[in-house]
């Protein structure tokens, strides 16, 4: 995700960070690191070789009506590459829908994504243009669930220090690089992303995304942050879509049964497994 994809882990749901700078004086880190270097650390923080978790997705419309989806997801790192798969468990009309993606570190390689709809009976490949679309009706997009493409963005500090929930944060603004602007905006839908990053663990705790279509702003919040098996994990993610300061729709993701580094078989990340289901 543009904010910090590991915080979603492409429905691998690993919300993780290692305290790389834990024992470093925070002011020293700020002085030494550029905004790009901070984002690189955000991108490189260990989130476990594998993860699995369950997620409850609550979709809330402007009138407060809620729709609930349950999913189970798995992620595995292959060096710098990542593979993720998620299965929808409820409600009935999306049961057994599956989403698989390969997130390649090599910028020259297009990420691979497939969506399996039981009614169609075969996995359907998704093109990059779909990535800015809503993921199953939520305020998160498919692009939100892919890893950060740092080299496609320019970053700068907006503020060197701001407290969020009592934690000192940098505020960093990212805009697509001029040369890649069309590609990035086409694929993500975002013109600009502002991130609040905790200095103690490089965890993105807040974000603001400027959506080109409809000129909307999406507000991202990561809360209920705790360490699981030594890995920082946000157990609640919120995305609120607004237009001209009016809330249009919200999505809350609640994570449960998060397990790291217990191994996930390679066969889990295949189109055949999408058909087979959990």
């Amino acid at each position, binding site marked *: 995700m543009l904010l910090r994809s590991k915080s979603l882990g492409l429905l691998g749901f690993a919300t993780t960070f290692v305290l790389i700078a834990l024992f470093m004086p925070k002011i020293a880190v700020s002085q030494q690191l550029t905004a790009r270097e901070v984002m690189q650390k955000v991108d490189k923080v260990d989130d476990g070789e594998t993860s699995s978790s369950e997620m409850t997705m609550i979709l809330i419309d402007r009138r407060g009506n809620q729709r609930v989806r349950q999913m189970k997801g798995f992620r595995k790192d292959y060096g710098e590459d990542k593979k993720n798969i998620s299965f929808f468990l409820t409600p009935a*009309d999306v049961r057994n829908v599956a989403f698989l993606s390969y997130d390649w570190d090599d910028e020259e*390689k297009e990420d691979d994504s497939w969506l399996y709809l039981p009614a*169609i009976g075969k996995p359907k*490949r998704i093109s990059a243009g779909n990535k800015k679309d809503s993921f199953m009706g939520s305020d998160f997009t498919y692009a939100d669930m892919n890893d950060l493409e740092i080299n496609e963005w320019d970053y700068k500090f907006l503020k060197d220090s701001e407290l969020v929930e009592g934690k000192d944060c940098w505020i960093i603004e990212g805009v697509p690089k001029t040369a890649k602007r069309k590609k990035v905006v086409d694929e993500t839908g975002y013109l600009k992303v502002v991130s609040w990053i905790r200095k103690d663990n490089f965890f993105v705790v807040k974000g603001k995304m400027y959506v080109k279509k409809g000129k909307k702003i999406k507000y991202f919040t990561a809360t209920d942050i705790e360490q699981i098996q030594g890995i920082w994990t946000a157990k609640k993610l919120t995305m609120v879509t607004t237009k*001209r300061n009016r809330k249009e729709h919200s999505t809350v993701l609640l994570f449960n049964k998060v397990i790291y580094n217990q191994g996930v078989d390679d066969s889990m990340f295949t189109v055949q497994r999408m058909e087979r289901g959990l």
Partner: protein
Amino acid sequence: MMNAYRTIFPILLLFTILSLFVFSTTAIADTSDDTADYSETATDDEFSDFGDEDESGFGEEGDFEEGGGFENIEIDLENIQTSNYEDSPFIFGGFFKEEIDYSHAYEEPDFSKIKSTLNLNLDWKIASRWKAKVNWNGFYDYSYTYRGRDEFTDETLETYESESEFREFFVDGGITDWFRIKIGRQFIAWGQSESSQITDVANPRDLRELGMVDLEDSRIPVAATKLSFLSGSLELNAVAIHEIRGNKMPSVGSEFDVLQDVRMPGIIIEDEELPENNTENTEFLIRLFKTFNGGDFGIMWADIYDDYPHLDFQELAVMGPGSVLLTLVPEHKRIQTYGFSANMVSGSWLFKTEMARKLNVAIARNDALAQVSAITIPGIYDEDSNVIKPWSEKNTHSGMIGFEYSGFQDMTISLEAVAERIEEYEENLSSNETSAQAVLIVSYSALNDTFDAQLFWISFSDNNGDVYRLNLEYDIIDALAVSGGFIAYEANDEDATVYNYRNNDRVFMSLKYSF
């Protein structure tokens, strides 16, 4: 009125797409922004209308306070109904659907469908690698009672009024990660085309209502054994189909009867004959499928019965001078198919193709009646040795090229061009040497996927007509969806494929409750 569709439809298409933008929460003015020149970096103007506190043009309308978007939304977990999917190996579900179609183009416009459908599904997780599934589907169409059952042929009532069948009934599993077996009635979906059967030949299709049946509902399951061997991104499938089923065809006397022009005095068309379900008739298919970075590729081979029946000669009786009775019977011919399918992504584009060669296909001839006239000349006719040959055995090439474009947010435009060519073509064949069709599908989602719209446009080559369909669906709640739309058939040429259906236009709506 029908002729007007060709002119009106492109306008309607454009209007509908624009309307969908309006219907969504995005203004049309915003869409023009999507085509803006990206050659420059973001300007202040681009952010001027966001209404954000930190940018220009902020705060005119909304009720957010500073940082209002970062609210911590409290979720009352006690009131959220979640699944107990891990507590039980059984998951039960299904849906109930009520459909109403109104055929406004009839001479006497009337309801053509008042159909109640019940679908019940049971998934059973037998063990970690094994599962079973049972899916039953049944419907009853009250419109035939409403209009008077005496008005319809027995075949029509049998085909359209009610149905009950197990759509899936299988056990699926394996003892290793690289081998899997699936036994039972199932769907086997291959290929890339959303509109045609080129390499996707394992399951017959429901063709009872041209253009009305969605892809997901059109496949007819078959009892089969499917073996899958997996190695990374490579998959080898070997399939044996034990249950020989054909396409579900429109019945005699129904509004979509494909044999309307053949049914005439002196010709009897018997009931369809399907090959028996025995070991000799088992169908075989093999596919090798590989995913790679940026695309998928598959090659296949099949030795199956053609799902589309052909009319074969059964009997010719001379009733008297100038009077004969020719009896034909729909049968299914054994054919072989080999081909490949592939897709490739590039940015917002998904390119796809399928090619296949089909061997020993039965192609209808147009000289059957001439043959009858020739051999029934008094003094020549010999009822023991003379037969009519209503079809010829030919090989065919089929191909599809197409693309999907998803550069517009929440919208996908899909276009497929499909063509078929008959090898060693002869003039006595009833089909053209080359036939083609184009299928355009525009799909749009809005309101966080609670609203979906789809436009279909099927255009047959050689002036064989067009079919247009618009379908709108709205999820009132997750479990309850309402949909509506229209379908129109247009053909000017009396010989056109669609001409006999030109009065079958419908408006339709449905209500579906999933559980």
